[in-house]
């Protein structure tokens, strides 16, 4: 089961602020929905245990998340590998940051995921909807954090 997503988010913060935020594993981890536990393993990697509820697949999944920032300060890749309850998820996401003005940054992103095991049984439409919800909530939390709110 392979899924692809892409999109564009407008974030009310400068490009430098956004870049600094998405380079920080602790800040990124705090924006993921349903996070039960995080463990920062180095400056660009962390482990996260999250609650998953997709159809009949319900329980804890653990993921290793690695941030791979581009030296130019405008592109970030993120690799997420892990799973649980007999399922495996491999996700690769990439984001380009474009400064719209001094206080607004546009983030063009795309992601591909491959899924194996019970989670793949749930079916593309259900999974796709669920994954989009997680992505939307993550960006919502990022926006809240960068606009002074708490995620």
């Amino acid at each position, binding site marked *: *089961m*392979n899924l692809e997503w892409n999109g564009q988010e407008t974030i009310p913060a400068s490009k430098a602020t956004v870049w600094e935020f998405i380079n920080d594993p602790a800040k990124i981890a705090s924006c993921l929905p349903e996070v039960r536990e995080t463990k920062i393993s180095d400056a660009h990697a962390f482990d996260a245990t999250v609650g998953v509820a997709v*159809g*009949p697949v319900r329980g804890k999944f653990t993921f290793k998340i690695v941030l791979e920032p581009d030296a130019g300060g405008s592109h970030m890749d993120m690799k997420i590998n892990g*799973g*649980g*309850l*007999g*399922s*495996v998820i491999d996700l690769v996401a990439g984001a380009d940051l474009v400064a719209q003005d001094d206080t607004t940054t546009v983030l063009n992103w795309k992601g591909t995921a*491959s*899924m*194996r*095991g*019970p989670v*793949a*049984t749930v*079916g593309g439409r259900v999974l796709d909807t669920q994954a989009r919800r997680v992505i939307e909530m993550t960006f919502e939390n990022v926006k809240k954090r960068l606009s002074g709110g708490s995620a």
Partner: protein
Amino acid sequence: MATTTDDLPARHSLGKSMKRKEDPRFIRGKGRYLDDIVLPHMLYLALVHSPYPHARIKSIDKSKALALPGVKAVITGEDLDAAKLEWLPTFHGYDKQMVLAFGKALYQYQEVAGVVATSREIASDGAELVEVEYEPLDPLVTPFQAREDKIILRDDRESKTNHIYHWEVGDKAKAEGELDGSAVRIKERILSPRCHPAPLEPCGVLADMNKATGRLTVYMTSQAPHVHRTAFSLVTGIPEDKIHVISPDVGGGFGNKVPVYPGYVVATVASVIIGVPVKWVESRTENLTTTGFARDYHMDVEIGATKEGKVTALKVSTVADHGAFDAAADPRKYPAGMFGIVTGSYDFPTAFAEVDAYFTNKAPGGIAYRCSFRVTEASFAIERGMDILARKLDMDPVELRRRNFIKKEQFPYPSPLGFVYDSGDYEATTQKALDIIGYDELRKEQAEKRKSGELMGIGVSTFTEIVGAGPGKHFDILGIKMFDSAEIRIHPTGSGIVRAGTRHQGQGHETTWAQIVAEELGLDPQELLVEEGDTDTAPYGLGTYASRSTPVAGGALALAARRIREKGKKIAAHLLEASENDVEWKDYKFNLKGVPGKSVTMKEVAFAAYTNPPPDSEPGLEATYYYDPPNLTFPNGSYIAVVDVDRETGAVIVRRFLAVDDCGVVINPMIVEGQIHGGLTEGFAMAFMQEIAFDESGNNLNTNFTEYLVPTALETPHWETANTVTPSPHHPIGAKGVGESPNVGSPQAFVNAVMDALAPLGITHIDMPLTREKVWRAIRDAEAKVS
């Protein structure tokens, strides 16, 4: 002319709808299934499964699981390999099967490790803690990918190809020549998709090694307890007398509980090592993803015919998907089972069939799901092929069939693919079906509806099955001839106990076996206790699957009873103070010839056998018979489905379904009707709902009952049934078997009906299952072509 059950002479016990003796305990919730059995100090096994369909196993870390309180052991393929228990033989002996993935995982959900713990929950938690590092490899998802041999699946085999075998039967050159010369010719690729029997009770085992006695007791969900005892002995090296297999009440099998599964072996190994009982009961997902699947035959069907609709030749070339191991439950000489029945009910002058089987990254299996070894696939191919030919000839599909039926005077009929059909009257059975359903009126109604664009379809299936494996000269499992057995002990008061080598899973043997024996001995079937499933007490038999119980064990029961009658005759002569030659068995008692009213009953004989046996004779009244049938039996039927298809949604409503079956002499009409209802419901599910499908990555997409649908009373159509009787000439009581006919005969009736409904749109074939989406897409595509 075939007879009906009503036409048969009055019998003592056969042909009567006696209520099932087993039902009082089932309907009161007093059945005793595997998971009801709890033994002192019992541990539980949970299995770790591969999420990948194809992956190298780089490491397995047990430490976290072993650290969990309550976990007693973690077993891997490496552990089993060290104990020389890593490989299982497959039933036909041409391949071997991994118990736990070792080196590579070859299909998704393959068993990788086992965790033994003090509770089921702790075992499951422990399984989550086993860390397996995989290196994913590209999977082979279809047999067509596999046959390219770009990826070789099985490192363990010397032969570096995914091709397992080529099997063929018939005269290829002659069949192809006739096809080339035929005035009319059809060719269609027809898929019998991978499906699963999905018994409501999944598979399980409770292994209990008693280290003091050295005896292993194995409670298991088994359709073939004796074969499993032999298999356990062969795999473990434990002498067979030290193994006791007990198959308690079994909640449905349908072929799924014939193979030996890794969970059985790992639980047994754990019990042998730890010395306490270990239970493993699989989950629904484990059942659907790892245990024996059925079908998965891609069949190219070619039929030649004259313009008048007389068939001239048949050729069927099949690509078979066997999964990661060749664990198909087929007899040694028949790697493609009884696929040679593909000529069906029709008198083909020449025919040829071939099967090429391939390994893929899918669960192994290829079991006989409510059919006798690939008969459902064959029946589907020929019955769909005949319908497609009728369409090409612009001929009514019933008329085409009638022009080609094997005539009743042609029996015993040697088919061009090597079987000798025992008996049948296809014309009479079909006429009965046409009369009951009102075929001509339905065609008129259909013609009217077509004028207004309504999609109504009528589908027929006039199938012939082949069951009762079987003659020992041709059929074996693990080299053991496929006979079956019966043992009868009549007590002094005229009641008795009947044991057989079979193991029912809902077929009603506790009733029908008693009826057979009662019929032969003039006793009360209510006073004959039937016992199966315990290898310490039942005579050795090959078990219950492939519609073999009545054709084989049923014969053994009748012949064992006749042995009792022979001995009874001596006792009766003693009681009547007459010569044995002057005594005859008539009207269910022993009579003195020529002296009306001078007779003794079997009950009186039984009492005398223990209290007053003839001088110089052996006391007691019991007999055993091991029956090796001379031929297979050939149940047949004419099924008609009437459907309405919603053009806007693709929804199919099965308005009527009639099954007219000829299963030879009927033992219990109520049980036969129940068997037919169950089989038709499963056939309906295959036609419209069920497929074990995989995505391009090798993910199994149908791993639970939300994705693999089982029809409920809401979806299931109303079934109409009737029967004809042409007794099997070689079976001791003329029976042919019926359990699988409705499953074998019905899918094509449903599909033929839907294709008939869609004929005005130019749609020739859609592969099962005919889901609403598939039918809707076919209609949409066809309408797009027209507009």
